[in-house]
Every structure is written in C-alpha cells, then in structure tokens.
C-alpha cells in the first residue's frame, strides 16, 4: 500500500520547530490552534518543558473564530498575556486549522505589535511543513529582527567584525534544538570541543544562550551549521555580514580533528589551504580521496535522517573504511535542497522500506526498525527526538565528538530493548506557563 504510513512516525511540524528554536529566548510563543491538539508538543517535542520555564501560549481557536476569522480576539488575548508577562518579543504561528481558513500570521503579527508595543514575529505555518522549515524560519526571523550589526568598517567586504590580533577564533553554532540533539549532552560536547580547541564560542542558536547573546553573535568569524535548521540563518549571515560557514558535526576521533581544521580554515579565510577547500565542499560530503578508497567488496550502509546529521555520520562511516557504499536518505522532504544533493528524498514508507531492504546496514531512528521486523540486526539505532519524541530519550547517546562512535554502539543494547517495550502513554494538555 503506497503512500500509507503504517509503522513509521512523522517528523515534528513547522510550528513545533518554531517553538523549539525560540524556547529559551524570553519571548511569548503563541500557537494559534484549538485547545487540546498540542499535547504532542509538550510530551514529545519539548524535553525542556518541565525543567526550563518558557512562555508558550495556546490561543484556543474555536468554531466561531474559524467562521469569522476573528483575528481581533486573538490579538486582544495576546495583548492581555503580553501585558501580564512582559515578554522580550512575541512570535505567532499556528496549526493546519488556521492555515485552512487563510489566517495571515504576518498581518496578525503586525497588528499585535501595534497593540502591544512588543516586537512581534509572524510565521506562515501550516502544520504540514517540517520542523526544519519552522525552526529555520524562526532563527532567520529572529536574526533579521534583533541581530545588532558590528560597527561598519567602511566597505561591504569588511563588514565583519574585526578579530583582535592573536585573539581566539570566534565561532557560532547554528541549528541546536532538542528536536535534533535532544538534551542528553551532544550540544554540550560540541560546545566543549570549540572551547577546548582554543576558540571562543560566541553563541549557540539556540540552546543555553540568551536573546541578547544571540543578537550580538554577528561578531563571530565563522558559523558552524550543526543541523539544517541553522542553514537559512548561516546563508543570511554569510550574505549580510560576510561570515563564512562550515556545515556538519564530528562523529569519531578522526572526524573531530578534521572538523576543527575546517572551522579554523574557514574562519581564518585560508583560501589556498586544503582544509578551506574542504570547508567549501557540499557539507559533510565524503571527500573524493576517501570515497575512492572505499573497499569495493564492502557492505552497503544506509543512513536515514536529517541531512546535516546523515552526512556527518556518513563521513564517520567513510573514515572507518568498513563500507563499500554509503547511501543517504532524507525523509524530511522540505529540508534545504543545497543540503540534500545526492540523497534519496522521500517520506513514503514503501520507498523507505525498499531502500532498507537493499542495504546491509542501516543507521536510523529505532522506529525505522519496524520496517523490517525480521531484520533488526541490520540496524544501528540512533534516536531522533523530531521523529520518535520522548520514546528513547533515556537511551540517547552523545553522538558527536571523539567518542561518538563508541557511544552510539554502546547504546544499542538498551535501544533494542526500549524499542520493543515502548508504549504510547496518555498525553498531558498544553497550558500557559509563565
């Protein structure tokens, strides 16, 4: 049965990507939707819900509002909440329902800003696009609105903030949300790697930093895109401030050294340096010299997931020399095209099963294991919050850094057990949290 999802999950949608991206920044994040339809957000998409306070407001869209397209009630309610909580900014997006009746969130944002005096971002959401699209737009909109440009140095080419002589290389990590990295230490590991290699971590978009830190992050020398949610922002900062970007995160010891080298080369703008050339190539692409040395009689590895992650894992697999062929499958069909070149792009369960059948080994979220119940041994499981939510959160390994490969392999036993035992638990309602 084609186009039917029988055993697979779906990826988090755009509005949840927005919520995740902006969660820690002190804004009032509004979800325009009927009450009760967003429990998946709190239970599956936001692991910080019970630990880090944030202001998330659900509008409680009702039938009469739907008939009348009553934006005025929504704006009035947001104003009331805003007056009470005094957020740094407001963001507004919604579910499929307001999308169907043609709610214009950009117009609502404009009117809300006028009513509240608080800077307001409006997002065109439909609850159908993926979190990659939503979080990517959220980071970009936040930057366009709040980023403080470095002091102008005259010409456009020198608009980038000048690094002090002998000062450390200044780095931003772009694209950190629990949807891609959970809250189990992987982002912390990436931050530590930057700092331990004598670079200055300016900001991480957006886990662990304030809105103010992010707003001043264009003084960085280089951006590192660690998930596709950070890609639109990286492209914009490159165009606007001339900040180069490196894409990918390191998996394993050798890859970690190379990653640091690529960041340095890009940040120091070493045009003739081989590492700088490497930084320019398709993010995470397997270098030609490694690709041609892959053993011809080796096994075929299929990696399924978010494009920056799958290429990063692909690079590690190539460096291991254990596979004859490495294939990439991106089920997030609206991920930036520049990042998915050469990948199979499909969210069709039938097509994904076929791709899995053809592979000898598969690295994917544990839910993909259900496609081939009799061939579970083929799989190396790596949970992805945006796909399996909280099901495997306790078994998340730290999947970046020198020990990443070992961590992933060590986690397998628990993940297999967990995959067999996971059950759907009752969801709790979304409530306003100040």
């Amino acid at each position, binding site marked *: 049965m084609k186009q039917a999802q029988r055993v697979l999950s779906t990826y988090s949608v755009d509005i949840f990507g927005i919520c995740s991206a902006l969660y820690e920044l002190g804004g009032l994040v509004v979800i325009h939707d009927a009450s009760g339809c967003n429990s998946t957000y709190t239970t599956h998409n936001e692991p910080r819900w019970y630990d880090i306070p944030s202001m998330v407001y659900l509008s409680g869209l009702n039938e009469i509002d739907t008939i009348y*397209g009553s934006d005025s009630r929504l704006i009035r309610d947001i104003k009331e909440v805003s007056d009470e909580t005094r957020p740094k900014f407001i963001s507004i997006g919604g579910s499929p329902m307001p999308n*169907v009746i*043609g709610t*214009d969130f*950009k*117009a*609502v944002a*404009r*009117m809300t800003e*006028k009513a509240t005096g608080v800077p307001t971002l409006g997002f065109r959401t439909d609850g159908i696009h993926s979190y990659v699209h939503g979080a990517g737009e959220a980071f970009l909109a936040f930057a366009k609105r709040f980023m403080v440009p470095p002091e102008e140095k005259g010409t456009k080419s020198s608009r980038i903030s000048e690094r002090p002589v002998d000062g450390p290389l200044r780095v931003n990590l772009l694209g950190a949300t629990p949807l891609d990295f959970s809250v189990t230490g992987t982002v912390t590991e990436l931050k530590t790697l930057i700092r331990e290699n004598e670079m200055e971590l300016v900001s991480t978009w957006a886990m662990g930093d304030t809105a103010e830190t992010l707003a001043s992050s264009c003084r960085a020398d280089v951006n590192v895109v660690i998930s596709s949610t950070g890609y639109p922002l990286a492209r914009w900062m490159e165009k606007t401030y001339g900040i180069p970007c490196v894409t990918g995160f390191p998996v394993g010891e050798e890859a970690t050294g190379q990653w640091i080298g690529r960041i340095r080369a890009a940040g120091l703008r070493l045009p003739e340096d081989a590492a700088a050339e490497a930084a320019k190539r398709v993010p995470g692409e397997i270098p030609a010299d490694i690709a041609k040395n892959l053993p011809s009689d080796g096994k075929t590895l299929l990696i399924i997931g978010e494009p920056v992650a799958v290429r990063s894992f692909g690079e590690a697999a190539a460096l291991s020399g254990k596979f004859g062929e490495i294939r990439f499958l991106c089920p997030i069909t609206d991920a930036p095209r520049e990042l998915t070149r050469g990948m199979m792009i499909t969210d069709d369960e039938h097509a994904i099963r076929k791709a899995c059948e053809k592979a000898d080994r598969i690295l994917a979220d544990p839910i993909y294991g259900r496609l081939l119940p009799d061939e579970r041994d083929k799989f190396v499981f790596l949970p992805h919050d945006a796909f399996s939510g909280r099901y495997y959160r306790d078994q998340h390994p730290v999947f970046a850094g020198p020990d990443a490969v070992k961590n992933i392999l060590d986690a397998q036993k628990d993940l297999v057990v967990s995959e067999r035992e996971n059950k759907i638990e009752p969801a709790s309602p979304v409530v306003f949290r100040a």
Partner: protein
Amino acid sequence: MKKIAIYGKGGIGKSTTTSNLSAALADMGKKVIQIGCDPKADSTLNLLNGQKLQPVMDYYREHDEAPGFEEVGVTGYGGVYCIETGGPTPGLGCAGRGIIATFDLLEELEVFEKIRPDVVLYDVLGDVVCGGFAAPIREGYAEKVLIVTSGEKMALYAADNINRAVLNFADRGYASVGGLILNRRNVEGEYERVEAFAKERNLPIVADIPRSGDIIRFEDQGMTVVAGDPDLPVSRKYRELAEKLMEE
C-alpha cells in the same frame, strides 16, 4: 517587479481589462504574468486564442498531486504567462482556499523567480467573501489594487465595498487602492457619477475605457482588442494605462 490586483463587481469587465492590460504591457516588451483568481477560470481566455487552460485546482483534482512548473501555466499572447487558480464547483468546497493553495504552490515552484516578470496582474473574483479572496493583496503579493467600475449604482456599490475592505486591511500592511478604472456602460452622466465617487474617497480615475463593440468583436475571435487592432481608440486607452502603470 510591479504587482497589481484588479478587483470589481462581477461582470464589470475585470478579465477584459486585465487581459488588455497584459497584452499592452507585452507589446511594450514587458514580461507579464496574469493570474486569474476565480473558480470560473476564464481570466486568460483572450490571451490564449479563446482556449481554456487547465486551472491549478483542476490539476490537483485529476492527478492527486501538485503540478510541476511545466504544468502550472501556459504562455499566451506576447509571451504573457497565464495561470488560473480555478476552484470547486459552485456550492461545494472552498474557493478561497483554492487561491491560497495556488499561491503557495507558485511560491514553492519559484514561478516568479524563474520567469522574472516585470509585472504580475491578479484578476480577482468580484466579491471578497472570505480570507482567500484577500490573499492577492497580502504582504508580498500585490502592492496596488485597481478597482474596475462603471457608473452603474451596483458597480459603484461594489467598488465602495472593496475600497472599504482594503482600508480595513491597512493595519495588516496590505496593498492600497491605486485608483479606479472606469469601464463605461454608457449610463447617463457616467463620468460625473464616477468622478464624484472617486473624489469623495480621494481616489484617482486612472483610466476611462469607452464602451466599444470592438472589444466584443475581437473577444469573439479569442483575442484582446489590443492584440486585434492596437490602433483603435479603445486599444490606445489600454496602452495609455499600461504606460502610466509602468511610469509610476
């Protein structure tokens, strides 16, 4: 890129005006996209030798999937790229949603980026009955609205409704009304009536199109009067309007 939405009472001549404007702009060497936003899907008929093109919504109905760039529209007179949103059978479904879905698709297929038009004309169904019919004047779409009217009472009544609706949307950052196009029906004191209406609302009359049998004659042949005989007085009026719009 100039983006203009043409509104007005049903049957007042919006499609005729829009198509002639497209043809005149094309004759000036401009790259034009005309988008019919009406379930009847007959906006571009006279740019296509009287042939109906497949509306975007009809494609969805027949193929269960979105059309690609090649299927979304066709090239008509003077290279004008013609698109019709289409919509459901009257009495069924949600026509406004059809307009929004088509606009989303055009964005997704990067139609404007690929064609790089000088002018986009939206020909919109007369009655703005729901959010979908206001979609052409949202931020990022048309910047200017032109209202087609005659001197008839009901046409002016509809023009007033449209003008007030657009004024109501001012807080939303939508398009503003750029003026009236008088499409004459030869009622008594027509110009004076429309002039008084326009003055009261501080709107300019940007064109005064005479009633002409030539329009109907060429439409019977599946073409605009501008294409049929560009030197006729009525064709000159359309060309003057096209020039005026490009100058602004």
